[in-house]
């Protein structure tokens, strides 16, 4: 998995940075989903513990 996108420079063989790699997009979506899932679990457990203590 690449972090950046490159192309060959027209002036020679050197690689040219052209931007971020779009292969990372699913990872950013997954990060958002993971945060939401973990938060739901933590809050559900915390609320259940709060109800038990009352």
């Amino acid at each position, binding site marked *: 998995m690449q972090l950046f996108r490159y192309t060959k420079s027209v002036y020679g063989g050197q690689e040219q940075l052209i931007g971020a790699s779009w292969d990372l997009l699913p990872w950013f*979506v997954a990060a958002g989903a993971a945060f939401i899932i973990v*938060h739901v679990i933590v809050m559900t457990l915390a609320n259940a513990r709060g109800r038990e203590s009352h």
Partner: protein
Amino acid sequence: MSELLSEKKGIAADAPKRVMRHALIDRFYHWLMAATILVLLATAFLPILGIKFQWVEIHWITGMLLAGLVLFHIVRALFWLDWRSMMIWLDDGRDLWRGMRHTLNGGAPPVRPGKYNALQKLYHLGIAILVLAAVASGLLMLLKIDTPFWRRDPYWFSNDTWGIIYAVHGFAAMAMVTMVMIHIYFALRPDEWYLTRSMFRGWISRKEYSEYHDAERWKT
């Protein structure tokens, strides 16, 4: 309601029945900004995902609108709103720690925040950095396109510099996908509905104000 009864119920009796949280212009700004960011993300990523259409013009025009909205918000926040209410202070670090301990270990309940809690302030800081990075890099990219106002000039920067500008824009955009997901999630949580409602109707109730906020830290 008597003062004693108010104290007993923990309700700020001197607060109005409806506590104004967001003025109409600020709500309008929020929803217009939300729409522009969603249009920008859609025009950016749908073509990458295979849904091809003429996206460049919509994208840069909406980007210019976002730049204008950001400028409006900065000026309004500095001169009309209480910008200090969004600043992260040492108290917020303490509140964050207490909140985490309370949630994870059942420690003492956290202190009620002012208008915005520590997590909201952190979110605002994060999204501000990302939006400013995307807008700044996006404005520079306008040099590469023909518009009714100017002719393109891609030689303003070297190829290496353009690569960095595009990389900043791309990473900021992808990170905004994550942040938008998180923001919509919190807006839909039942325990946060009073805040979501306030972004439509502008106010929260006296009871919500007393329950969720410290009247000393957010004076109405």
